[in-house]
C-alpha cells in the first residue's frame, strides 16, 4: 500500500502508547482516577522526607495502602480498555510471569536476596512485556 494513500501509517510507538495510556486514564471513573493518582503520589512521597521519617509500622501501612491503591487503579484502568489492549495486557502478564520467575529463581539460587525489590522485578518485566506486545501487534505480519 502506498504510504501517501494511508496517512495513518508511520506513527511512533511511544507516542501512540503515551496517547492511548492518557485516553484510557481519562476514560476511567473519577474515583478510580483519584485512587490511582493518590496511590502513585503517596508511594513516591513515602520514600522521601518527611513521610519516610515516620516510625514503623505506620510508614509500612502507608506504603501498603498506597501500593494497593495503585493496584486497584490499574485494575480499573484495564476494565476500560478494548479487546486489543486486553490482549496486550494478557501478553504482558505472560512475559512477566515467565521472565520474573526465572530472574527471581536464578537470584535465589545464586544467593542474591531480592527482598522487596522482587516487586520491581515483576513490575519491570510487565512494562517490558507490555511495550514488546504493543510493538509486536502493530507490526505488519
Amino acid at each position, binding site marked *: 500500500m502506498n504510504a501517501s494513500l494511508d496517512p*495513518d501509517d508511520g506513527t511512533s510507538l511511544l507516542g501512540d502508547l503515551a496517547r492511548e495510556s492518557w485516553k484510557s486514564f481519562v476514560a476511567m471513573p473519577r474515583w478510580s482516577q483519584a485512587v490511582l493518582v493518590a496511590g502513585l503520589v503517596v508511594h513516591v512521597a513515602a520514600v522521601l522526607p518527611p513521610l519516610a521519617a515516620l516510625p514503623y509500622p505506620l510508614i509500612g501501612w502507608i506504603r501498603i495502602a498506597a501500593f494497593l491503591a495503585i493496584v486497584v487503579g490499574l485494575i480499573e484502568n484495564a476494565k476500560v480498555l478494548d479487546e486489543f489492549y486486553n490482549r496486550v495486557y494478557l501478553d504482558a502478564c505472560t512475559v512477566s510471569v515467565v521472565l520474573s520467575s526465572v530472574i527471581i529463581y536464578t537470584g535465589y539460587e545464586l544467593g542474591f536476596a531480592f527482598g522487596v525489590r522482587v516487586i520491581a522485578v515483576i513490575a519491570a518485566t510487565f512494562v517490558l512485556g507490555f511495550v514488546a506486545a504493543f510493538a509486536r501487534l502493530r507490526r505488519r*505480519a
Partner: protein
Amino acid sequence: MKNAVRELRLHLGWTQQELGARVGTSRQAIIAIENGRFDPSLPLAIKLSRVLKKSIEEIFFFDD
C-alpha cells in the same frame, strides 16, 4: 488469518481513527487487525462487517 479491512477502509475514505470510532474500538486495534497481527472477536468482526458493508467472509479469509 488475512483480511481486507485496510482496502475497504481506504475505499470508503476513512482513517483508522474514524473506523475505530465507528466500531467502538481503538485506532491501535484497527492497526493490529489491518496488519494481520490481531484477529478481532466475533462482536467486533460483526461491527466491522456492518460499517464496511461487506459480509464477514468477504472481510476475513484464510490465507490458503
